[in-house]
């Protein structure tokens, strides 16, 4: 299995391309923007995109999808049956599917807008904007924040230290690193650095 990171300079996001060693069917995770560099990468590796995994159905996650669907006969996967005018294969927490020869497990890490999924493939965890290195996604209010932090602790930090976290924004990290270092996850209330503490 090969993994490529594509960084879109227009929306500052990472898109991940996962595929077999010698071309064939491949997976895109969160193609926020479809640009010529990403197309060259896909074609250069002799991949055909058959599956597009979306961690969160916001506009940033969807910009590239419509373009991709004009080029490739791909199936969308998210936790909604439809995103705008695009039909999706709806996934729920614990669902396991095989895509491009890889087992993909969907995890519902709720507490935010309730429509985020993270995807595990082996020791890789694609977290979208839910959890990045030293950060977690923004919440609408303290209650939502508390839910989100609890959920990340229960679901994500329970995984093995070695699991690599590949977020939509910023650098990679690992479960072990976030458990030890992320200041927002190191306290029961959800962070050492709350605004009210400053």
């Amino acid at each position, binding site marked *: 299995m090969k993994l490529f990171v594509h960084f879109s300079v227009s929306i500052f996001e990472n898109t991940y391309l996962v595929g077999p060693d010698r071309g064939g069917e491949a997976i895109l995770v969160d193609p926020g923007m479809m640009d010529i560099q990403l197309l060259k990468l896909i074609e250069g590796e002799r991949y055909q995109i058959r599956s597009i995994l979306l961690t969160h159905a916001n506009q940033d996650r969807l910009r590239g999808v419509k373009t991709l669907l004009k080029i490739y006969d791909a199936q969308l996967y998210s936790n909604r049956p439809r995103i705008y005018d695009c039909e999706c294969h709806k996934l729920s927490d614990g669902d396991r599917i095989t895509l491009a020869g890889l087992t993909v497990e969907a995890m519902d890490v709720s507490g935010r807008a309730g429509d985020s999924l993270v995807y595990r493939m082996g*020791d890789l965890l694609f977290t979208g904007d839910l959890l990045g290195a*030293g*950060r977690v996604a923004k919440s609408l209010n303290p209650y939502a924040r508390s839910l989100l932090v609890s959920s990340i602790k229960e679901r994500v930090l329970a995984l093995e230290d070695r699991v690599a976290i590949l977020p939509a924004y910023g650098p990679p990290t690992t479960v*072990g*690193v976030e458990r030890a270092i992320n200041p927002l996850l190191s306290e029961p209330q959800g962070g050492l*650095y709350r605004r009210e503490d400053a």
Partner: protein
Amino acid sequence: MSNERPSGYREAMLSFAKCAIPSCPEHAATGSDRCLRHSDSPEELKREAASLLSRTREHERLNLSGMSFSGLDLSGHQFASCLFSRAAFQAVNLRGCSLHLCFFDFAELTDCPFDGSKIMYTVFAGARIARCDFSGCDLLHANLNGVDCLETKFDDSDLYFSRFIASRLTAVSFVDCNLKKVYFSAAILNQVSFKYSNYEEAEFKEDSILP
């Protein structure tokens, strides 16, 4: 459409065999079916690892976590998808290297020159970094959260999208660096220089990491 990969991309292959001890969650070390801790001959494994690093210049999918290296000259080497978690590097020359999706989390890096290296999507989080030189590096999308960094230079480097969240930086210089979208939130800075750098484009506020 050309069937060649565009420049700037490097594949990662982050799939490693598990340690043969059923209850162990670690990856097997390169050259063994067990992790370093469960190896029958850890010292021999370390010697083989040092030899392996010196023999070739392109390294991919190595798991040398927990090992110690001293005095090696690895300048100009290329590393992709390599695990050096909790490893110790003492006076190892890593000048002009290429590092892509490598993991040095909780490692100890002492007196190691990295100057002129291209370091992308690499994790140094939780590492202890003392008297290292990252001058003139492309240090892009690097995770240096929680590092304890002492007397180290990042001068003339591009640190775009790298993070130093909750780190402790003492006598560290970032002279003439690109600090756009670099996070220093919740970091403890002591004798840190940002001379000639665009530090106004970096993020220092603790509440910037609030959810």
